[in-house]
């Protein structure tokens, strides 16, 4: 716990969010100081608690700050951690997702342009960080969704399913699909065979034998490899004997 606090207080900065358009859907408005050509700030007494961005940059958002054009490296902070994201509300995550998306578009444009001009992309690790942050947001949302679903229904998976056989006798997890018509009217579905005929039993047995043979071969290989290791490194044999 102490190590955790120390890590938090060690100034790890994070990238991705512009200060003006984020955080804590408060009814008040924070002026975005970095965009001078901003329209008039919207009135405070609005019913919506979630603000959309006020920046009207248009296609400029596909490009980085002009001060960074031509630089060999651009400084960027750390990616968003899962632990930090777990403490954020849905609105914050929603806003952060779009901020990260726009940043990702900008970086991908930059990557493509540097490929076109046959030059190295300045600081490609920014793209990795943005992708990692977006993946973490997705994970957090999925976690919350699964927790709620488990609480309300007891199911973990969003889509129900069951174990079924196919026409070759193999057992697999069939997940249900959404159809507009019931199964007895669905010609495509009725053509699918979720059963196997008696002549397939022989092949099931052969397949089982094959898998057992593969497993036995793998185990034998492990044993011979272990013997060779014990021959080369005798102390391993001593340790395994004492255990």
């Amino acid at each position, binding site marked *: 716990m102490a*190590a955790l606090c120390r890590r*938090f207080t060690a*100034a*790890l*900065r*994070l*990238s*991705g969010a*512009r*200060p003006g358009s*984020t*955080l*804590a*859907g408060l009814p008040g408005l924070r002026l975005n100081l*970095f965009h001078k050509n901003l329209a008039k700030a919207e009135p405070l007494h609005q*019913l*919506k608690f979630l603000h959309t961005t006020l920046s009207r940059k248009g296609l400029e958002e596909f490009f980085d700050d002009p001060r960074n054009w031509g630089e060999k490296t651009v400084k*960027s*902070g*750390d990616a*968003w951690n899962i632990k*930090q994201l*777990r*403490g*954020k*509300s*849905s*609105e*914050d995550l*929603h806003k952060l997702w779009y901020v990260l998306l726009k940043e990702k578009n900008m970086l991908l444009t930059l990557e493509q342009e540097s490929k076109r001009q046959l030059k190295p992309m300045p600081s490609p*690790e920014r793209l990795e960080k943005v992708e990692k942050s977006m993946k973490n947001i997705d*994970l957090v*949302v*999925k*976690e*919350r969704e*699964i927790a*709620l679903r488990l609480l*309300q229904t007891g199911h973990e*998976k969003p*889509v*129900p*399913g069951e*174990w079924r056989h196919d026409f070759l006798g193999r057992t*697999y997890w069939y*997940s*249900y*699909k*959404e*159809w*507009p*018509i*019931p*199964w007895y009217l669905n010609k495509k*579905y009725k053509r699918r065979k979720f059963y196997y005929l008696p002549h397939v039993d022989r092949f099931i047995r052969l397949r089982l034998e094959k898998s057992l043979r593969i497993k036995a071969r793998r185990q034998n290989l492990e044993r011979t*490899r272990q013997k060779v*290791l014990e021959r*080369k*490194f005798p102390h*391993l044999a001593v340790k395994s004997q004492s255990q």
Partner: protein
Amino acid sequence: MHRATPPTPPLPPLPSTDRLEAPERPSRRGAMRLSALLCAGRLRLPAGYRHGTWRPGTAAAQLRNPPGLRRRKIFVEPIAREDWKVFRGDTVQVLTGKDAGKQAMVTQVVRARNWVVVEGLNTHYRYVNRTTKYAGTYIASEAPLLLNQISLVDPEDRKPTEVEWRYTEEGERVRVSLRSGRIIPLPLRQRWDGIVPEQWIDGPKDTTVEDALDKTYLPSLKTFEEEIMDAMGIVETRRAKKSYWY
């Protein structure tokens, strides 16, 4: 830190939910290209992969380990991940070989082969950047050493010692030299992107520490989508048509 609702335990990494097949199905990735493997988060190398001093996935590695290559298996003494004692940046002493008795810093560690590359020691000479006209630069290149050929060095004694992992009174796991009982500190680990947290100054696109650690989450019985719809004032009056799941 008191929370209103019991905290959700950290869930194990989710399997890919777009194809909801049997969870225990082994993935068959034999046909995947090595370059694509780097894009997937975890690197999955072929079974008989021969590790060298090059990083798997780089051009040099792909040149030396083309797909379909089968080489004689090298048996490496299995060392558990938590028992590993030597890290990059440690000072070690070479015990055997040409440079026996000399101490230097570790520049590279290859755990798959229990290798350690020490700066400037156990060198052989070779030519690099050779062209048809130019003979090449004659440089010294270090050969890797096995773990039993090197030994960690006591920080004050500067003599080689046996090292063990032990726990301090605070609960921190440290390396302790068995001869004198002194703690060998872990070498300073640089971040992969070169950031030094103590010297960091926020850029225009960076969130401040306070804002990042600020907890705005209030657990509720609404899904993410429902919460966003409430916040944006979206009211869904359409009703879904009856659909069948099978």
